Every structure is written in structure tokens, then in C-alpha cells.
């Protein structure tokens, strides 16, 4: 009893320590935050004559200048020291790898939190243990990745300092307090993640388990804040605020953080990270499934792959809408920037992006259809899959149709203009919005089928429920396609608003049909249990495809977002005068992204391999009679 009380006390102390660590950066940085407010006072004391005011380039408010102007760099060893290699490519590589790992270690603890909580509230003891084991498996993978993230962060800072000292000096002069908070929060996150991982066994039951889950909440709050702080730097580079037109800091740090694009970037990135994290864990499970020697292992990794995929796709579905919001804000901030992205220099990259998004949804649907095979009773849906394939393919083809094509003069003459007389009609936003919404709605339908695959509803109103669901989906398709066609007949300023009801239609299917299905399947008759592990090998390759497509798309979108600044380090404030201030060709960018993707996957395979070493050791230790016996799943880690 005393031991339990001691453990409780220890756990509460650990939680308090973590909350303290979380608040520490704020407490420590308060004087730093006040720099902006104090500095003008100091200047005032020296005499009113020295006070200079500037106008915020974004907020249009007046403030007292407290920073130096953005440096006007020149191409030379002082501002752009270099090796005999393109510095931008080195920075691109360091940045991208850090982002991949950073996204992964931010997303996976969120999954852990959700799965551990599901394990706690599940009444079925066996299921609860499986969830707990799964959450533990997830955090184990992310722990090694966490160390690599920190190493890559160091490499990134050194790359900035050594290759772009003038730019990084300016950025750090603006974000000084933010960077200190960031560093301290990183310390807080490290402490929390290690206590969370190593305290798993000690805090596995009762009240202590609640403390353990609370730690995961603290961990994820810190992780999300870290991401938001890092986003403020790229937000500032794209849409600066809090400085005057010369780039001089005006003393309000919140203006510098809260730029025009900060919030959409935050939402888009957190959803993207979650989808990416789910994809990587699903690929890990697929790899383990393919390498499994026993049915038991196959069943475990099949289940793990499904959960990770479902979590990833849950965040993938709203991702295009978050992307749409980001683009809308980009247009609102600078119309020219939006045109460069969607209709100018970088437009072809968006066609590639559309292709990748299509691949993501096609892979997800393919996996779900394959997964229907492990359920008895799901055969009834098999004959309808060909129709879903047709709908998905049509949506996909419309979604990837370019507006104009790069052509030779002879081709141009043969086609009669830059736009194809028939296909060119599909290369506009009205059609594309229809295409992607049809794809997402079909994915939601596949999920609904999967969730009811081996069940027969027993509620008295099941017939009405089935008819209503079928008609709701049918009407949703009609509404999406109708709005897409309607867009051709109304002016652009009205047409642009049609995307909102289109999105609402898709989301209605997601929320209402999932809820309706849940009510209908309450106490449903099971045709047979889900036979975990009895799924085709092809489905696992679909999971790997899903993860690879996520990785490639993240690399692509990062490149697009960064390239839109063109020849500016900080948009319209600090010019990039290095020899690499030009936009790469699509081919070079694609090769570079592919290289980053390959490097990430080889390195993450190494992480997976490291994780498997610990698992292999366990039986050997047990045989040797190590005190405590052999570790048991979900009980002894």
C-alpha cells in the first residue's frame, strides 16, 4: 500500500515537474519579451531626438524602431560563404530531413495519446492491452527518431550559420526571444518524452495510468507549440509583419509571430504532420507484416497498419481544405504570390501535387477494398467496387488535367490554341474542386463499407437507415457535380464561393454518415470476426505506397512554399543576392525531392532496424533467467 502511495506521489511530482518545465520557458523569457517594450524607454531616456518611428508593413500600425534594417547582402564570402557546391541545395537537404523527422516525432506522440486513451476507456481487457502495446510500439519508434531530429536540427542551424550568416543573423535578431523559448521548450519536450517512455511500466494501472496519459497531453502541447514557433519563422519569411519597409523591428514580437499566413500554416502543417506520421507508422507495420514469420505477428502488424492508416487518413481528408484556406490567405495577402503559385511559374508543380493527392486516395481506397477480404460477410460489397473505381478514376483525371500545356509551335497550331478544345475545360478550379470532392466522398463511402463489412444492423429502422444513407451519398455526389458545372455559368467572383458548399457537402458525408453508421451498427449481428493477418500482400504494398506518396508530397509542397518567395530571403524586405536566387527547373526540383525521400526512407529503415534489436533480445534474456522473467506484451516493456 505504501509502495503504491509512493508511486502516486512520484507520478504527481513527475507531472508537476513537466508542467513546470512547460511553463519555464514562458517565465524565463518574460524579460526577453519585454525587450521590445523596454528598449524604447531606454531610447527615450537618451533623448527624444533619437526616437524614430516606423510603420508596420502588414499591420500598418506605427511603432518605435528598435532593430537594425535588413542587411543588403552582396554575393561574396562575407554574406554567402560557400563550398564548391550550391549552398541552397545543401540547406534544402538539411531542412527537408529535419522537417521529415520533426513531423514524424510530433505526430506519433499524438497517436500514442489517442491510442493509450482508447486502451484506458475500453472495457474489453484483452483489447485494452492490445491498444496499450500498440501505443508503446509507436512511442518506441519515435524515440530513436527524436534523437535524429535533434541531430538534424543542429546540422540545419550550422548550415544556416556557415552558408547564410547574414540572413540567419537578421532572422535571429528579430526572433531572439522566440528562439530562446523554442530551445527551452525543446528541453521540456525531451524531459517529458523520456519520462513518458521510461515510466510506462511503472505507471500502467489505475490512477497512475491517468497521470501517464496526462503526460502525453503535456508532451503534445509542447510539441505543437514548438511547431507553431517554427512556423512563425517561415510565416515571417513569406509574409513579414512587425517590421517597417526597411525590415527594422518595431518592438511588437506578437506582430512578428502572428503574420498573415501563420494560422493557416499551423493548421495545414499539423494536419499534414499527422497524415505523414500515420503513413510512416503504417509503412513500418507493413514492413513488419511482410517480414513476419508467424500468424500471430502478421495479425498484430496487420492491425497496427490498419490503425495507423485510419488515423493518417482521418487527417488526410481535411488536409485539402486546410490547403485551400492557406492558398486563399496567400491570395488575400499578395495576389501576385497566389498567381505565381497556382497559375504561373509553379503551376506545373501543382499538377504533380494533384497527382500525388490522387495517388494517396487511390491507395487508401485500394487498401480498404483489400481489407474487406479479411471479413466474412463483406463479399456483398465486392461487386460494387468496380463502380467506385470508375468514379475515382474520373475524379482523378479531372483533378490532374492541366489548364494549359507546354507545347511546340507545331503542336500549338495543331491543337488550335493553348487549351485543348475538350480537355481544356476540365483544367479549371471549378472542375478540379468537383474532382477532389468526388474522390474524398468516395473514400468516405469506402470507409463506411469497411466499418459495416462483417455486420448486419439489427435496429428496427435499419431499412430506412440504409435507404437514407444511399440517397444521402447519391445526393452529395449530385450536389458536388452540380456545383462544379454551375461554376462554368456564373462570374468568377461568385464562382469562387461555390467551393465552400462543395466542401460542406463532403464533410456532411463524413460526419453524418459516420454517425448514422455508428448508430445503425450498435448491437449489430456479426457475420464473423475480422481475421487479422489474413489480408493480401498487395494491401501492404498499398500502405508503403501511401507513405511514400506522403513523403514525396511533403517534399514537393515544402519546395513550392519556399520557392514562391522567388528572389527574396524575406519577402519584399530582404533580397537574396546569392547566385542561387532563381527558381529551379521542374525536373531538377523533382530529382532533389526524390533524393530527399530516398534518404529519409533509408534512414528511417535504420531507425526501424534499431527498434527491432531490443525486441529480439528479450527471449535470450528470459532464457538466461534475468530477474523479472520474459517481457510480456503490454505488461512488461
Amino acid at each position: 500500500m505504501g509502495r503504491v502511495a509512493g508511486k502516486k506521489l512520484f507520478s504527481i511530482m513527475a507531472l508537476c515537474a513537466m508542467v513546470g518545465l512547460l511553463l519555464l520557458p514562458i517565465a524565463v523569457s518574460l524579460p526577453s519579451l519585454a525587450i521590445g517594450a523596454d528598449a524604447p524607454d531606454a531610447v527615450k531616456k537618451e533623448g527624444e531626438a533619437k526616437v524614430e518611428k516606423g510603420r508596420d508593413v502588414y499591420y500598418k500600425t506605427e511603432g518605435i524602431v528598435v532593430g537594425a534594417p535588413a542587411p543588403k547582402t552582396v554575393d561574396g564570402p562575407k554574406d554567402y560563404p560557400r563550398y564548391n557546391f550550391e549552398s541552397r541545395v545543401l540547406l534544402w537537404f538539411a531542412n527537408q530531413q529535419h522537417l521529415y523527422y520533426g513531423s514524424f516525432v510530433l505526430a506519433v506522440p499524438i497517436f500514442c495519446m489517442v491510442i493509450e486513451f482508447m486502451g484506458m476507456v475500453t472495457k474489453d481487457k484483452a483489447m485494452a492491452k492490445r491498444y496499450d502495446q500498440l501505443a508503446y510500439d509507436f512511442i518506441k519508434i519515435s524515440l530513436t527518431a527524436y534523437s535524429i531530429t535533434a541531430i538534424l536540427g543542429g546540422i540545419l542551424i550550422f548550415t544556416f550559420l556557415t552558408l547564410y550568416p547574414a540572413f540567419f543573423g537578421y532572422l535571429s535578431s528579430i526572433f531572439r526571444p522566440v528562439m530562446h523559448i523554442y530551445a527551452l521548450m525543446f528541453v521540456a519536450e525531451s524531459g517529458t518524452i523520456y519520462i513518458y517512455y521510461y515510466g510506462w511500466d511503472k505507471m500502467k494501472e489505475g490512477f497512475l495510468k491517468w497521470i501517464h496519459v496526462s503526460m502525453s497531453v503535456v508532451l503534445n502541447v509542447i510539441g505543437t507549440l514548438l511547431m507553431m514557433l517554427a512556423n512563425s519563422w517561415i510565416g515571417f519569411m513569406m509574409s513579414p509583419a512587425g517590421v517597417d519597409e526597411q525590415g527594422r523591428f518595431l518592438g511588437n514580437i506578437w506582430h512578428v509571430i502572428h503574420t498573415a499566413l501563420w494560422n493557416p500554416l499551423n493548421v495545414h502543417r499539423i494536419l499534414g504532420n499527422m497524415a505523414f506520421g500515420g503513413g510512416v507508422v503504417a509503412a513500418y507495420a507493413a514492413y513488419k507484416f511482410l517480414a513476419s514469420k508467424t500468424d500471430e505477428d502478421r495479425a498484430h502488424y496487420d492491425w497496427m497498419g490498419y490503425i495507423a492508416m485510419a488515423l493518417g487518413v482521418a487527417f488526410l481528408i481535411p488536409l485539402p481544405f486546410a490547403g485551400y484556406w492557406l492558398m486563399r490567405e496567400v491570395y488575400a495577402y499578395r495576389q501576385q504570390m497566389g498567381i505565381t503559385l497556382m497559375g504561373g511559374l509553379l503551376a506545373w508543380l501543382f499538377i504533380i501535387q494533384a497527382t500525388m493527392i490522387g495517388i494517396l486516395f487511390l491507395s487508401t481506397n485500394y487498401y480498404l477494398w483489400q481489407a474487406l477480404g479479411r471479413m466474412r460477410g463483406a463479399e456483398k460489397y465486392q461487386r460494387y467496387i468496380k463502380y467506385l473505381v470508375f468514379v475515382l478514376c474520373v475524379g482523378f483525371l479531372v483533378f490532374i488535367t492541366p489548364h494549359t500545356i507546354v507545347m511546340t509551335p507545331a503542336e500549338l497550331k495543331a491543337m488550335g490554341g493553348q487549351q485543348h478544345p475538350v480537355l481544356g475545360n476540365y483544367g479549371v478550379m471549378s472542375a478540379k474542386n468537383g474532382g477532389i470532392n468526388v474522390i474524398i466522398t468516395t473514400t468516405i463511402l469506402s470507409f463506411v463499407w469497411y466499418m459495416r463489412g462483417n455486420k448486419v444492423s439489427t435496429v428496427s429502422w435499419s431499412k430506412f437507415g440504409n435507404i437514407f444513407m444511399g440517397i444521402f451519398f447519391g445526393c452529395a455526389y449530385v450536389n458536388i457535380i452540380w456545383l462544379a458545372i454551375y461554376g462554368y455559368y456564373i462570374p468568377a467572383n461568385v464562382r469562387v464561393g461555390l467551393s465552400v458548399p462543395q466542401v460542406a457537402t463532403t464533410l456532411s458525408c463524413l460526419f453524418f454518415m459516420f454517425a448514422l453508421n455508428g448508430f445503425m451498427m450498435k448491437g449489430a449481428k456479426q457475420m464473423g470476426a475480422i481475421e487479422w493477418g489474413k489480408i493480401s500482400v498487395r494491401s501492404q504494398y498499398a500502405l508503403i505506397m501511401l507513405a511514400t506518396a506522403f513523403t514525396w508530397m511533403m517534399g514537393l509542397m515544402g519546395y513550392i512554399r519556399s520557392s514562391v518567395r522567388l528572389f527574396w530571403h524575406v519577402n519584399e524586405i530582404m533580397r537574396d543576392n546569392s547566385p542561387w536566387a532563381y527558381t529551379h527547373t521542374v525536373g531538377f526540383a523533382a530529382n532533389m525531392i526524390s533524393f530527399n525521400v530516398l534518404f529519409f526512407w533509408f534512414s528511417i529503415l535504420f531507425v526501424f532496424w534499431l527498434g527491432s534489436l531490443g525486441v529480439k533480445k528479450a527471449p535470450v534474456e528470459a532464457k538466461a533467467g534475468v530477474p523479472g522473467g520474459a517481457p510480456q506484451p503490454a505488461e512488461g516493456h
Partner: protein
Amino acid sequence: MGMTIVYVVVSLVVCIAYFTAVDHFLMESQGLDYWYLFRK
């Protein structure tokens, strides 16, 4: 069979009314006219 027709009709009425309301009110919330083409 009779009930099936009733279910289909009720479902159609509810769904068409719902999606029309979604289109109308979400366009209106943006200060735009969903019925633009029909008023012209």
C-alpha cells in the same frame, strides 16, 4: 414495397432540402448569391 417507396421519398425530400440549404446559406454567409443565374 409500399414502405420502401415512402422511405425513398422521405429520404429524397430531406436530402435535397438539406443540400439546397447548405448551398444557399453557405453562399449567403460569404455575401454571394447562390441563385445568381436564375435571377438573371
